[in-house]
């Protein structure tokens, strides 16, 4: 060690005392933001610009490709969408799909809560959930088809069954690992209040694991759509009142690829709405508000 370091001494300064001003009226002293900062601060705006950029890319690539039977342009798709809305009852079809989907989703959410509650309460429940999840999660919907038809016949109930299969396992997985990752101190606090069983799950575990549960809900939502569209083709609710999947399937078979893309665009739009409005709102009022998520 050099002498220079050893000898380093801070200067002696005089002491002082000050009187403190009344802090009552201190307001927001944030520096005003520049116009550009304020603009880019608007998440909605940024995302809209992003969507426009994606649409432009699509249009450009499709034009360059010039193969409308494989990849139609964005403008053609929008025209087809408009046509679909006016002539083919696309909104009704979207509604049919959406309502089926919501049914399956709700059932799956309830089931997931029940199963994971049992799983965290007992060791055998834990084994059961883990085993069932690893068994059934990888199975494609078609594997359930015969069973679904056997139990529920053709129609919405079977479709719901397949949807539940799509949503339940990923949601249960996320929920369960969320529960498992709840900090020990919070668990102890909850048990200290004498909570147990469902009251413990709803009072402590679910809110504490809410970030993971929300992710599970998002994934479940997406996979419900994937499955619904694939399953509608097969289960093809009696002709006449098909949903979006049916619309896509039929038009694909008839090689109206622009309409197929229009159907997919509807799915995308619903997805964007759910993510940017519904889930964003929920996040803003829960996990972000609670400081559990950045």
């Amino acid at each position: 060690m050099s002498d220079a370091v050893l000898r380093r001494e801070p200067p002696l300064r005089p002491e002082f005392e000050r009187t403190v001003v009344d802090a009552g009226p201190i307001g927001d002293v944030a520096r005003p933001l520049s116009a550009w900062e304020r603009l880019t601060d608007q998440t909605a705006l940024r995302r809209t610009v992003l969507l426009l950029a994606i649409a432009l890319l699509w249009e450009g690539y499709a034009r360059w490709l010039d193969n409308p039977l494989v990849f139609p342009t964005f403008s053609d798709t929008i025209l087809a969408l408009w046509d679909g809305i006016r002539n083919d009852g696309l909104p009704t079809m979207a509604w049919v799909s959406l309502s089926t989907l919501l049914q399956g989703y709700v059932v799956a959410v309830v089931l997931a809560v029940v199963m994971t509650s049992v799983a965290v309460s007992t060791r055998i429940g834990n084994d059961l959930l883990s085993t069932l999840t690893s068994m059934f999660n990888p199975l494609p919907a078609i594997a359930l088809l015969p069973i679904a038809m056997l139990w529920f016949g053709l129609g919405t109930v079977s479709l719901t069954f397949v949807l539940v299969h799509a949503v339940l396992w990923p949601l249960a997985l996320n929920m369960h690992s969320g529960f498992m990752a709840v900090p020990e101190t919070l668990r102890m606090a909850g048990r200290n209040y004498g909570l147990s069983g469902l009251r413990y799950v709803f009072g402590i575990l679910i809110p504490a694991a809410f970030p993971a549960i929300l992710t599970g809900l998002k994934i479940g939502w997406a996979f419900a759509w994937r499955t619904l569209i694939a399953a509608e083709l097969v289960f093809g609710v009696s002709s006449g009142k098909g949903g979006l999947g049916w619309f896509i399937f039929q038009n694909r078979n008839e090689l109206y690829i622009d309409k197929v893309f229009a159907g997919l665009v509807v799915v995308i739009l619903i997805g964007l709405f759910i993510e940017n409005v519904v889930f964003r709102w929920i996040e803003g009022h829960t996990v972000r508000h609670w400081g559990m998520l950045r």
Partner: protein
Amino acid sequence: AAEGRIRIAEQFGIGYLPLHVIRYQKLIEKHGKAQGVDIQVEWAQLSGGAAMNDALLSDSIDVGAGGVGPLLTIWDRTKGNANVMGIATLNAMPLFLTTTNPNVKTVKDFTEKDKIALPAVKVSVQARTLQMAAEQAFGEGKFDALDRFTVSLPHPDGTTALLSGSSITGHFSAPPFQYQQLQDPKVRKVLSSYDVLGGASTFNSVWSKKAFRDSNPKTFAAFVGALREAMDVINKDHKQAATIYLATNKADMDIATIVKMLADPDIQFTVAPKNTSKYAEFMHKVGALKNKPASWKDYFFEDVHGEQGS
């Protein structure tokens, strides 16, 4: 593309037997040699018309195979750009509408309580045939009278649903499912597509883009030649054809069943289109085709124009 490569996609089922024979006996290679080109043949198995269309239009395959309906649709949609046309047919086969409902004698007897399974409501060959039958039964313009009883189910699921006594009481399928169904005493035949069309009709064909034929004339000719030879093989020796079918499909079906099927006079293996124009007319009438073909020669290449087609 350079000559000497052909990518063929087929589907599942006995109807594609000519392609199996070509593959098994390497007939394209043989006919290519005769023309002086070494042809590299790539085979793919795809599971449905839509996948076939995607593959063909994205240039993943050169030759697609499937039912008459998809051929007419893709011809109609690509007329003027990709120009997809039929090369030849693979067979003529009857499609049966079967039922487990003892009260159903004709299509008129189906009621609200019945459900008829089809591979795809409205758009499949079976659905079109049923519509034609409905028009014949209920009168001009009433072609959609039975549509509300129909549901989409793939053949295997439809078959199990019919046989296991669920809510499916009717099934419009294809060989070999319809024959398997008829082995069950509960199941009866209501209708054959031959009745509707007034004679033998094409079930499967092969098609390709015009551009492929133009830039690969020798390869294309080799394929057509191979196809014709395969038909001869099948029609001459049912036993050998059945053996080839079992070998290529790894199916452990009884060889006698297949031979019996091949011997059925209703089942023909021929490159000549049969009664396809009736489908075309009907599809145009109901708006599924925008272009009205003047004759079957509009949607088949010249290679088979010499045949007795319809």
